């Protein structure tokens, strides 16, 4: 029944990628110059792909909606990037990184892709260091590592709490180098409005210049979507305000299947919602779980007193604190994977032990870490009789050097000082494992159309481990696509320039113009944001951290109703001939209103719990996720049929040749 060919090379798992590279078709340098490639998005995947392909000799156009490619949301990633370097001599290896990622993804990722990711991980660190990325170093001048959730080795490279910024600026510098040479033509403040498919192949895009409103046609021999994830379907998420699904969704409507749309990552350590005005949520890096301890009061009366503002975290004695992650998962403690940590926090809050005015928060406490680091510093400095104040102050300095920017951010947003009082955190939507279905070569079901980074579904299964998103974005862009794209483009050397004056471009452009004109002429009464907020609430309540059949069915009906009302009642001010952010938002929300339904449909269909997808009907007696490998060990890949609610399901069965599939346990 499946029409999907994942093109996984044959052979042993650790030979697949090298064999593939040895035999993949190549394009000679002279021919590369006459081949055009479009890259949509300039985050880690987009910048690294555009720069690398241009270095190879291809003629590249890169598009981003921000005012500069350096603004892409990869920049906000905080904690770090994993690589199997084993610099710590703690037993790490390509196999272990591969194994941890498959297990962390709850056995819903494709083995061959994940192994390749682990194989190239070390090259990424080399590349970034060569570019001048200032990773944290030890006193000997060599690179430092730290640990991260879901693993028992220290393999995470970092640059304070802003690793994503430094990696993106590295990729941006590589991209800038190519822009200067003219091998990449950069289009800032441009939004991709549609993919143009000619004779079954992706041959270009329709883009809108967000400053002038001009609709442009761009042709190419291949199109790469590096447009990120769709977490903003929830309205409130840790994504940047502009993050959207539109490029991927337009591709979906043009024939690209959407893989595992319901696999959403809820990140356990975010700053809780403070009020109805909230426009986005802010993540506090998972690296904080290295040293911070998560707890709620043991006694309900204490929790209630805190909720009512009568007590503070510091008022609760040690004996009356419930370090629930350490209690439930002694082997991994505060470092359990994100899905497990998030659900455990929700469980405590639902049981009435939450700690801020809304009851929707748990404590993340640094008092122990400050004490521990302070004692180490005192010992190092030979201050045996240091008083408590000195120890605390030295401990604070260490914590500041490791997490200073995060603590500052927390203080700025909440007005509380986390050096003195425990932080309050709560899970929030952070990342989407689902995305466009791609084969081993990162090609979607539309020939010539590729998806890289968070925009594809491929490497993280049902749950992504911390510090793996940066790894995947850069792996796809620097080390995978430069090889795999040759297999397609080798057959395009005789094609010649793709013309833009064809019926396919006419049709796509007309549809885009019609939609823009609809929005501006629809004299509705409600703002775009008002619809987005309503959609977000439905998604969070019914398709968030816990899902059930009844809620999902209700959500589908509600989303359809909101969508219908949107098209009648939306009001978009301004014109299409100058800068008009409301118009840009309207198009994005229209697409979210369709995607949301598909996510619920996918969640409803997947009658099991795995990773970030928790179906209340499918749990063990102690509340852990219960997978159903016999019936659901596949990638749900959805084909658009004209109505998001009537998408057709194709299954890619997941075959585990190397790893033994077991129930995931972090106890």
């Amino acid at each position, binding site marked *: 029944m499946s029409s999907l060919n994942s093109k996984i090379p044959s052979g042993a798992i650790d030979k697949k990628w090298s064999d593939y590279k040895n035999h993949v078709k190549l394009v000679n340098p002279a021919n590369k110059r006459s081949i055009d490639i479009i890259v949509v998005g300039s985050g880690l995947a987009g910048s690294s792909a555009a*720069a690398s392909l241009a*270095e190879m000799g291809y003629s590249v156009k890169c598009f981003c909606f*921000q*005012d*500069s490619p350096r*603004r892409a949301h990869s*920049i906000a990633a905080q904690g770090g990037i994993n690589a199997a*370097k084993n*610099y710590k001599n703690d037993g790490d290896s390509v196999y272990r990184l591969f194994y941890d990622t498959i297990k962390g993804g709850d056995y819903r990722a494709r083995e061959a892709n994940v192994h390749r990711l682990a194989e190239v991980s070390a090259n990424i660190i*080399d*590349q*970034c260091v*060569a*570019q*001048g990325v*200032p*990773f*944290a*170093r030890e*006193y*000997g*001048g060599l*690179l430092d590592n730290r640990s991260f959730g879901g693993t028992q080795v220290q393999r995470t490279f970092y640059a304070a709490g*802003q690793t*994503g*910024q*430094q990696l993106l600026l590295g990729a941006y*510098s*590589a991209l*800038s*180098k190519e*822009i*200067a040479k003219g091998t990449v033509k*950069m289009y*800032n403040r441009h939004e991709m409005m549609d993919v143009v498919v000619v004779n079954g192949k992706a041959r270009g895009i329709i883009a809108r210049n967000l400053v002038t409103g001009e609709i442009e046609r761009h042709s190419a021999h291949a199109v790469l979507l590096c447009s990120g994830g769709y977490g903003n379907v929830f309205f409130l998420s*840790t994504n*940047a305000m*502009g993050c959207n699904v539109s490029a991927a969704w337009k591709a979906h409507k043009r024939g690209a299947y959407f893989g595992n749309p319901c696999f959403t990552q809820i990140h356990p350590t975010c700053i809780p919602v*403070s*009020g*109805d*005005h*909230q*426009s986005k949520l802010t*993540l506090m890096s998972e690296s904080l779980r290295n040293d911070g301890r998560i707890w709620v009061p043991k006694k309900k009366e204490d929790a209630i007193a805190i909720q009512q503002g009568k007590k503070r975290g510091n008022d609760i004695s040690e004996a009356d604190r419930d370090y629930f992650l350490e209690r439930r998962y002694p082997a991994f403690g505060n470092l359990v994977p994100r899905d497990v940590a998030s659900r455990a926090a929700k469980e405590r809050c639902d049981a009435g032990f939450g700690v801020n005015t809304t009851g929707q928060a748990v404590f993340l406490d640094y008092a122990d870490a400050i004490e521990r680091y302070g004692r180490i510093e005192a010992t190092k400095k030979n201050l045996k009789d240091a008083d408590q104040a000195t120890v605390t102050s030295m401990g604070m300095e260490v914590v500041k050097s490791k997490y200073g920017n995060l603590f*500052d*951010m927390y203080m*700025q947003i909440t*007005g509380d000082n986390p050096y003195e009082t425990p932080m309050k955190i709560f899970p929030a939507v952070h990342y989407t494992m689902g995305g466009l279905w791609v084969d081993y070569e990162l090609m979607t079901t539309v020939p010539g159309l590729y998806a890289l980074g968070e925009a594809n579904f491929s490497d993280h299964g049902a749950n992504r481990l911390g510090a793996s998103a940066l790894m995947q974005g850069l792996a796809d862009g*620097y*080390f995978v696509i*430069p090889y795999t794209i040759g297999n397609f483009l080798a057959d395009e050397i005789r094609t010649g320039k793709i013309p833009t004056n064809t019926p396919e471009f006419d049709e796509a452009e007309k549809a885009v113009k019609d939609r823009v004109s609809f929005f501006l002429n629809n004299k509705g009464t409600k*703002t775009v944001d*008002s619809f987005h907020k309503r959609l977000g609430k439905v998604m969070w309540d019914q398709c968030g951290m816990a899902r059930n059949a009844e809620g999902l069915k209700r959500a589908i009906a509600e989303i359809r109703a909101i969508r219908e009302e949107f098209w009648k009642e939306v*009001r978009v*001010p*301004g014109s299409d001939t*100058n*800068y008009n*952010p409301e118009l840009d938002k309207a198009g994005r929300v229209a697409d979210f209103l369709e995607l949301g339904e598909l996510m619920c449909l996918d969640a409803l269909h997947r009658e099991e719990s795995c990773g970030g997808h928790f179906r209340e009907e499918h749990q063990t007696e102690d509340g852990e996720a219960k997978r159903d490998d016999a019936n659901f060990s596949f990638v749900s890949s959805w084909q658009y049929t004209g109505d998001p609610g009537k998408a057709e399901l194709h299954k890619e069965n997941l075959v585990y040749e190397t790893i033994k599939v077991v129930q995931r346990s972090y106890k």
Partner: protein
Amino acid sequence: MTMTNGMNLTLKVWRQSGPKDSGKLAEYKVSDISPDMSFLEMLDVLNEQLVTGGDDPVAFDHDCREGICGMCSLYINGRAHGPQRAVTTCQLHMRSFKDGDTIYIEPWRAEAFPVIKDLVVDRGAFDRIIQAGGYVSVNTGAAQDANCLPVPKADADKAFEAATCIGCGACVATCKNASAMLFVSAKVSQLALLPQGRVEAEQRVLNMVNQMDEEGFGNCTNTGACEVECPKGISLENIARMNREYLSASLKAE
């Protein structure tokens, strides 16, 4: 969640329909503003009000809203990114203001940053300066093992501090000469401090400074306002280092 501390504010906002319009300040009222809102959330409230009333919302740049992408800007009451030090506009919260305040909101003003609309300016000049040399010329795949090249921790830390620049342009906006020296020197310093960047250091500083001049940024007269208003606390030391690099590179080039 309570709105009991809600503030009523008067906003004087720069409105300019496009690059050719002369622009002027317009007055708006917003009410019931929570001290827990961010400054941009307060502008969201204003825009919802404007759109609902059939008016054109105020255009402003923003994206991550967590102080790292560098997209937000705004000159608030005569200061880049508002009254707090080391804070971007998106991280500025309304608890920094009080009920009854009048707040002036203007775009970055510099010849090299032309206004696109209202509070949105074109900072493409920064990209072009980076393109002039703000990189190490290493192609993908050509790198040696990362630990082959030890870097003294002190140098790595200094390079990192310079590299935390978010490219927002506050330094230019706040400088009476609209100089981009802090921005350019941060990138020059980051790469000059690391062995990887040292190889091309001389050509880099000459090219980047040349591009900076071509873009129409003013010169540096050492007033230090840029350092004070930089949301990431980029140090003036970087400008001193760039001047040294520039001088030495110029002498060698002759």
